């Protein structure tokens, strides 16, 4: 398989699955502003996913468009990291995941602005601006919850604890990226700046960086949590129920 296709699909799936999870929040958020904010972030991620998956389909050259990739692959063919597929939990869990992921994407897109693959570089230039907002949004909430009420603090710490086992996978060395020097970013190289940013936020929020006893692995190889198998039926059902239909 073409590593570029795999790389694009991996990044695209991250964005797609997280957009799907954030979409579940809409009409359930703690305040209307957050219905909007989470919807907005989801929309940005969906936009990234569409660009990445469309381009993956073009490079692959087998006639698959963004919808074929999003709706007609099975669980084992998805290449997202496990972090994005875990259930939303309460608002603190979602904000912990947002902090982790948006700070990761911030470093990722910043680095990919120099990708030798033009589409990635173009998308990165655009996405880094969007993700700056996402990261700021998550940062503000981690601060407000961590350094607000006792309940906020307790829940926010629990949120960090819940998502931290999924962090290491984001920065694990990746076969696919290794085959694409200049095009892709080496995930371990993003860890230091990510850590600097996130640890600062966690400290300012009077919270503790968790030290998890276990770590997710293998999302990029299609080894997911059991949660993805419940997300995909909901996402894909209608499309699959009408084979070949246009929408």
């Amino acid at each position: 398989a073409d590593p570029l296709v795999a790389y694009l699909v991996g990044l695209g799936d991250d964005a797609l699955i997280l957009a799907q999870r954030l979409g579940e929040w809409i009409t359930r958020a703690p305040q209307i502003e957050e219905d909007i904010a989470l919807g907005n972030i989801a929309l940005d991620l969906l936009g990234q996913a569409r660009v990445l998956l469309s381009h993956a389909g073009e490079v692959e050259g087998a006639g698959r468009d963004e919808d074929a990739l999003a709706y007609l692959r099975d669980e084992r063919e998805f290449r997202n990291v496990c972090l994005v597929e875990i259930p939303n939990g309460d608002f603190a869990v979602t904000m912990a995941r947002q902090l982790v992921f948006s700070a990761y994407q911030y470093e990722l897109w910043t680095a990919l602005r120099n990708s030798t693959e033009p589409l990635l570089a173009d998308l990165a230039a655009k996405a880094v601006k969007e993700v700056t907002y996402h990261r700021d949004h998550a940062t503000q909430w981690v601060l407000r919850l961590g350094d607000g009420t006792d309940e906020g603090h307790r829940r926010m710490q629990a949120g960090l604890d819940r998502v931290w086992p999924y962090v290491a996978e984001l920065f694990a060395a990746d076969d696919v990226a290794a085959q694409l020097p200049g095009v892709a970013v080496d995930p371990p190289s993003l860890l230091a700046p990510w850590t600097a940013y996130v640890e600062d936020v966690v400290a300012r929020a009077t919270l503790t960086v968790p030290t998890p006893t276990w770590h997710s692995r293998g999302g990029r190889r299609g080894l997911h949590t059991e949660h993805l198998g419940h997300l995909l039926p909901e996402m894909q059902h209608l499309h699959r129920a009408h084979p070949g239909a246009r929408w």
Partner: protein
Amino acid sequence: EEQQLRFDRMIADEVRIEPRDWMPEGYRRTLIRQIAQHAHSEIIGMQPEGNWITRAPSLRRKAILMAKVQDEAGHGLYLYSAAETLGVDREELLDLLHQGKQKYSSIFNYPTLTWADMGAIGWLVDGAAIMNQVPLCRCSYGPYGRAMVRICKEESFHQRQGFEILHTLSHGTPAQKAMAQDAVDRFWWPSLMMFGPPDSASTHSAQSTAWGIKRFGNDELRQRFVDMTVPQADVLGLRIPDPDLRWDEATGHYAFGAIDWDELDRIIRGDGPCNAQRMERRRTAHEEGAWVRDSADAYARKHAAAATT
């Protein structure tokens, strides 16, 4: 008194009333009630469409739907802000909604059972909403009128997208076309009810008209909606579910069948398919979010205090 005279003159001259202007208490209360109901409708109205975000059949449609629901939340916030210029605050209004003391549009108490409902809501429900709202752009109260101008523009965009969803379905597979027709069958009559009871049975109307809040009767707007919509149904290739519908040469309008006002009454009383569900979702979101809002408030107080010391 003088204030009242000045107010009456402004209304008569179609000069807009602004937040800092004096206004009669009844005018203020009427506006608060109407703007709040409108804002609540935007917020509750997110639910029937939000129900399909996770299941949209293409990524493009998912993006459009997400953006639309977000628009509705934005319109809701916008309208709550407009209401706040009249001296209430959003929390009070939300409490009144949650306690069932203020209403939202009954149309949102119908379930969205298939994807085609996203089309029917855009085409019929947004279409009826726009028909109701365009006259409000000239509302005597400035902030509300100006809000409506911007909201109507965005709603037109939504209506166009709804039409496009139905058009795609009605020109798609037989199953898709059947889905589109079914959605129109279910949403047609409830859309006509959105204009409210017949003028003969409508309360509030006369005073609202005198105050320059309401500009047209319910029946007149309903007729305009039917006249606008029926030819669009032809373009869509979909059937309006009304055996009595026909063009009346004499009046130059479409004549249509009798509306089941009992159904509207029942739904307004709370006995609609989704009233309980919509309210429960709203209350649950609010209650489960209380700790989040509390923590944000505590943080703000803490840091405001820190900044001033």
